[in-house]
């Protein structure tokens, strides 16, 4: 509940950029539109009363059910969710931001969804966004060096997608 004034402030400042929030969750979160993400992040970091100067983690969650029978019963529409965990060292507070993305850009399978990079706000994002790109397949627009980080550069696909197909062979090594 302590988050209420913050949400009000953000809604006044960014209007439609704040698309939702949930205070009842274990970690209360605020949902941000992708276009407003960088401005919201910069504000959260630089506003003297907030000072969220640390980006702890970026997580991508793939909401998708490959099994059609289960998909009919699923309580969600297929989408990707980016979760940003922020921390303020001076105020000892955490904050969770969420960004909802389509699984594929313009519903074209294989076209990675795009979201602006926050690496200009926190440099932690330089490697974290590379990891999310590598494993979950999200293109961070404005990232200076968006390469794969954990997997080899010529790897195909993004393994943390729920519909990922494991390769049969990689450079003559049998994988299955």
């Amino acid at each position, binding site marked *: 509940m302590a988050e209420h004034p913050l949400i009000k402030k953000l809604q006044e400042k960014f209007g439609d950029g704040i698309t939702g929030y949930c205070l009842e969750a274990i970690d209360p979160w605020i949902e941000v539109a992708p276009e407003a993400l960088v401005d919201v992040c910069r504000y959260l970091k630089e506003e003297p009363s907030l000072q969220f100067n640390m*980006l702890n983690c970026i*997580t991508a*969650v793939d909401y998708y059910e490959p099994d059609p029978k289960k998909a009919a019963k699923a*309580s969600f529409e297929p989408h990707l969710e980016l*979760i940003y*965990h922020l921390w303020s060292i001076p105020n000892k507070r955490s904050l969770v931001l969420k960004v909802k993305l389509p699984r594929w850009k313009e519903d074209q399978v294989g076209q990675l969804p795009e979201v602006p990079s926050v690496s200009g706000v926190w440099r*932690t994002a330089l490697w974290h966004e590379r990891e999310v790109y590598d494993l979950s397949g999200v293109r961070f627009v404005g990232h200076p060096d968006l390469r794969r980080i954990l*997997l080899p550069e010529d790897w195909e696909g993004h*393994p*943390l997608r729920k519909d990922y197909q494991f390769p049969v062979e990689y450079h003559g090594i049998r994988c299955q």
Partner: protein
Amino acid sequence: MSQLQSSQIIELDVRTDEMLVNMGPQHPSTHGVLRLVLRTDGEVVSEVTPHIGYLHRCAEKIGENLTPRQWVPYTDRMDYLAGMNMNLGWSLTVEKLLQLQVTEKCRHLRVMIAELNRIASHLLGLGAYGLDLGTFTPFFYCFREREKILDLFEAACGARLTYSYITVGGVTHDLPPGWLKKCEQFLREFQPVVDELHTLLTTNSIFIRRTAGIGVLPAEMAIDYGCTGPVLRGSGVDHDLRRDGEEFYTQMYDGYAFEVAVMKDGHYPRDHKYPPVPSQAVLGDCWHRFFVRMIEIQQSIDLVWQALDKYSTTKGDVGSPIKLNQKLPKGEAYLETECPRGQMGFMIVSDGNSAIPRRVRARSSSFCNLSVVEELCQGVLIADVPAIIGSLDIVMGEIDR
């Protein structure tokens, strides 16, 4: 006159070729399988590009197919030098999702085990750091003592490296009879060794010359890159999750007295006698990162003594872990804990009505600590690169997951 000028210009124009040097992935001072590509101009490094991923074992993907308790052994294999702390971080995260509180006795047992593992992990970090810098002796002192802690862990859970002892809802089983006596004996024997290590490393003049003033990491840069743990505190930022973290984690340390190992107002904690800071050392350099670890060893010894006392006087039992296939409620939980190498965060996302989570995530402390080398190693000598990497005390198992 004009001829002289033109010859000067030629002289200034002479340059050595830049060279790309590949360091690793099997280089001993990279602490595992880290590959660095150095662009060097003579002895000076102008650019460092780390390449990671050689130890990637798909831990997060595996976690999407297992129940939380089944995933505990995989956390062991992340930071394999601090398995207990990894188990603890994951267990607390799942407990946060389940809104589960462990018993009072189990809480003290967890503090005791986690702090013992912190000592073991720092001992290895310091010993290996000495090796990186060319001193072999401290390594043996460190390993001799670490071995005793591993013996204690073996007596407690049967394993020496990958424990899976702390698990969701408690620990796998209580301590065997006589364990507390052995632990007390170890702590008594270990105390004088800390002073020996100060003599061997902290006040060793060669060691100081290799580390003081090298790889200075300013506080703002450390925060910007998400550096945590001793790396952050070595830069003078007063932040320790055991005191400042989320309540779900800090309540574990309720009633424990400890001072955060950080330089504040020009001095380190004065609870014990520590050697003075050498005049060459600059806040945020390799020496300070090393010294923070030395102080944390002492701090952990004190915490284990307190935990021993509290554990043996608390009535009740250590509780029992949750069922292997216990259903998870819908929701998501993220929790960071203070591991020896920094803040280790775990996340679990569950759809509800299933024992298997939709997504698990491990935020690695070494991953962020390593990302800073690209900037930290610019313009240093080649010989200082191992000194800087060693002072970050990385574990590749945790970076690559």
